């Protein structure tokens, strides 16, 4: 009985736990919060690992001539973070806040263009592998030949 009275008296002097949500400035969320994925087209090498691991089929990668179209339907995204865990170049990051409210569904669609380079031997277009080469062999080292060729030219002796 006594501890209960102590808690009751303490609660009189405590401030209310209700948060002020009428303010416009909403706070940012802590590090590691699972928000929507944010894609960086300059770091992406269009390997398609994110498309393979996405459980909700949010990511669609398609090639249009000399560019790759990276499409995301964020309205289907469940913020699981699989694409972020498996990305080899850290091209995708979590957004730091969960707020996403619109009156138009097109705001959820994200379209990014990734530039391609030409194969060293033929005219086929391949993604730039510089970031992967830097990760494997250290920065500043020359890029090996097999990373600058298309899969067809690689198989030729």
């Amino acid at each position, binding site marked *: 009985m006594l501890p209960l009275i102590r808690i009751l008296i303490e609660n009189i002097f405590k401030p209310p736990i209700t948060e002020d949500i009428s303010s416009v400035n909403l706070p940012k969320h802590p590090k590691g919060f699972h928000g929507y994925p944010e894609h960086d087209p300059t770091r992406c090498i269009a390997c398609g690992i994110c498309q393979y691991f996405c459980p909700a089929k949010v990511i669609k990668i398609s090639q249009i001539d000399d560019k790759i179209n990276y499409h995301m339907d964020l309205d289907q995204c469940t913020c699981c973070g699989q694409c972020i865990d498996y990305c080899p170049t850290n091209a995708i990051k979590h957004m730091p806040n969960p707020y996403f409210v619109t009156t138009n*569904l097109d705001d959820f669609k994200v379209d990014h263009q990734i530039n391609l380079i030409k194969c060293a031997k033929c005219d086929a277009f391949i993604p730039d592998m510089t970031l992967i080469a830097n990760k494997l062999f250290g920065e500043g080292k020359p890029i090996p030949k097999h990373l600058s060729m298309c899969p067809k030219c690689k198989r030729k002796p």
Partner: protein
Amino acid sequence: MIFKIGRSKSPWLFHLNTGSCNGCDIEIVALLASRYDVERLGCKLVGSPKHADICLVTGPVTARSKEPLLRIYDMLPNPKVIVCIGACSISSGVFTDGYSIVGPAHNLIPVTAYVGGCSAHPKNIFLGLQKAIEVFKEGR
């Protein structure tokens, strides 16, 4: 005029579950509970769609819940304001192309605001309610 002021100052909510996993429903309850208390701002959860101003829809529309959804939409008073909450409600989410899924709610009824997230944060739902209240203020 009185209706317009009343609706924008204290909109009553009706919660409709069309096959949700209960995650978004819990977040709506969290919005009404003590931490994010919206009842102090006049929002009240009511049991009948005839008393409600805003309808909160959660979950992808399943074949079984299509008929109740359309019936409840007819029961709502004008202006009919629907707020879709969660990824499932916006675009069927992970249940897309399921055998029992009729489609996201915007294929069947007009929707005013979309609240993203899986499941949506209570503050995010509050921002969605603000968008819905803007409709009452405009007098659409």
